[in-house]
């Protein structure tokens, strides 16, 4: 054959196969069994790769991205102003929102003139990439370090999280403002 592509081992792993007869010692398989057992026994003394999950937990990565939370500021007002940049940046198109105008007397609830009346994240679509957090100009949306991403459920509708599940609880905002002072 000429020096064509058939003769070259592209992967470097090409081996010629031979049909050699085994010797007597080899045909007893004793050496081979001991060799195999050595590998097995060696693994007994290795560090375990599994953990007892509910009792033990693994350390989270510093860039872990859990479930979203819409932040309140130190006065308990919602940061989100429904600018739509999170929905625009979302590659999975999981976020929808509807804006509304802040009325008189609601200044303690919302920080800006405009706020999100409806804010929904479809958790079945969300891929937890964190681009919404990156796009937010108002520091409003954050991916928390929550251990549980989305609780299991039966209906698809239950996975569309509205503001009731996303907005930071008031108690947490109060606790945050206390820890700052």
């Amino acid at each position, binding site marked *: 054959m000429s020096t*064509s*592509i*058939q003769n070259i081992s592209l992967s470097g792993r090409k081996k010629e196969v031979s049909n050699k007869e085994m010797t007597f010692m080899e045909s007893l398989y004793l050496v081979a069994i001991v060799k195999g057992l050595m590998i097995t026994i060696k693994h007994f003394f290795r560090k375990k790769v599994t953990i007892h999950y509910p009792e033990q937990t693994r350390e989270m990565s510093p860039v872990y991205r859990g479930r979203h939370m819409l932040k309140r500021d130190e006065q308990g007002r919602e940061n989100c*102003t*429904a*600018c*739509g*940049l999170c*929905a*625009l940046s979302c590659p999975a*198109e999981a976020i929808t929102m509807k*804006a*509304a*105008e802040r009325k008189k007397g609601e200044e303690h609830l919302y920080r*800006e*003139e*405009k706020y999100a009346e409806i804010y929904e994240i479809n958790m079945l679509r969300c891929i937890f990439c964190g681009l919404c957090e990156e796009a937010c*100009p*108002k520091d409003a949306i954050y991916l928390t370090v929550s251990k549980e991403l989305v609780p299991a459920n039966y209906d698809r509708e239950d996975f569309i999280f509205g503001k009731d599940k996303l907005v930071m609880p008031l108690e947490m905002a109060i606790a945050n403002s206390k820890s700052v002072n």
Partner: protein
Amino acid sequence: MKVTIDGQSIEVEPGTTILQAARMIGGELVPPAMCYYSKLKGSGGKCRCCLVEVSKGSDADPRPMPKLVASCVTGCMDGMEVNSKSSERVEEARKSVTEFLLINHPLDCPVCDQAGECDLQNLSFEHGKSKTRFIEEKRTFEPEDIGPYIQLHMNRCILCQRCVQVADQLTDNRVHGVMDRGDHANISTCISKAIDNEFSGNMIDVCPVGALTDKTFRFKSRVWFNKPYNAHRDCDKCCGKTTVWMFGNEIQRVTGRKDEYHEVEEFICNTCRFDKKDVNDWVIEGPRKFEKDSVINQNNYTRKIEKVVIETEEHILEGREQDRKKISMPDFPLDSNPKRV
């Protein structure tokens, strides 16, 4: 008359301004303009965004102009040579002008309805710094109600006075203008008179920032979530040619058709703009095209996609030919091919 802008020459009529000549050439060398509006007489010369460097005055007097000139109000001369984008001085000047314009402009793009189609946003994206050096307090005004259709945000105004010219030239009795002077200058309807003229809505279209916005569209949606379509209807007051901004089957906003410099092609009346929000009122012609980088094109997949051709090496298919020989059965009786060796 022959003018050369950034090395590109064009023949123009006498009386053409440098900005108009640049727009005839088109492309990157067109100076940005915040106050100049080709459809409004006497506009321009206020914002200083369109500054250019004249390196050769004319054939008769080839001396360069000592200072940068505002291209929207400077006429072309025969043999004039202009540097726009290519000049470092111009770039520096535009950066400074942008910084000046942003001094009193509030940082409320997330709230503003103009965001996404705002000239000042585009200008600062291209020429602005991401940091501010301004530590003093920004100028603020008391919110003022100027009628049921138009929302005035005086804080966002950059005093380009386009809207005043609309009121002057399109509407019969002008009810709004610039009050006070200097830092206190503000656009106002004199004695808070509501603007009820039939063409007053065009102020929204000419406003380069979010100072005048559509009250019927207020906070309804962001412009990039809407799908813009060209549409028309029979209107006895105006041409009836508009862009409708749809969300699903709902018309959320009607505007004039804006060209690449964000100037409307034709002014439209208030009935078309504010009252006809039903799909049945309009004959929809087709999607409106926007410049490539516009945020309005987000999630818009109408662009033509070219077919991908994978150029494989000849050798990759070599093995397959071998296999084909093995698989094909030369002895099979129905095979019409001659027997292979």
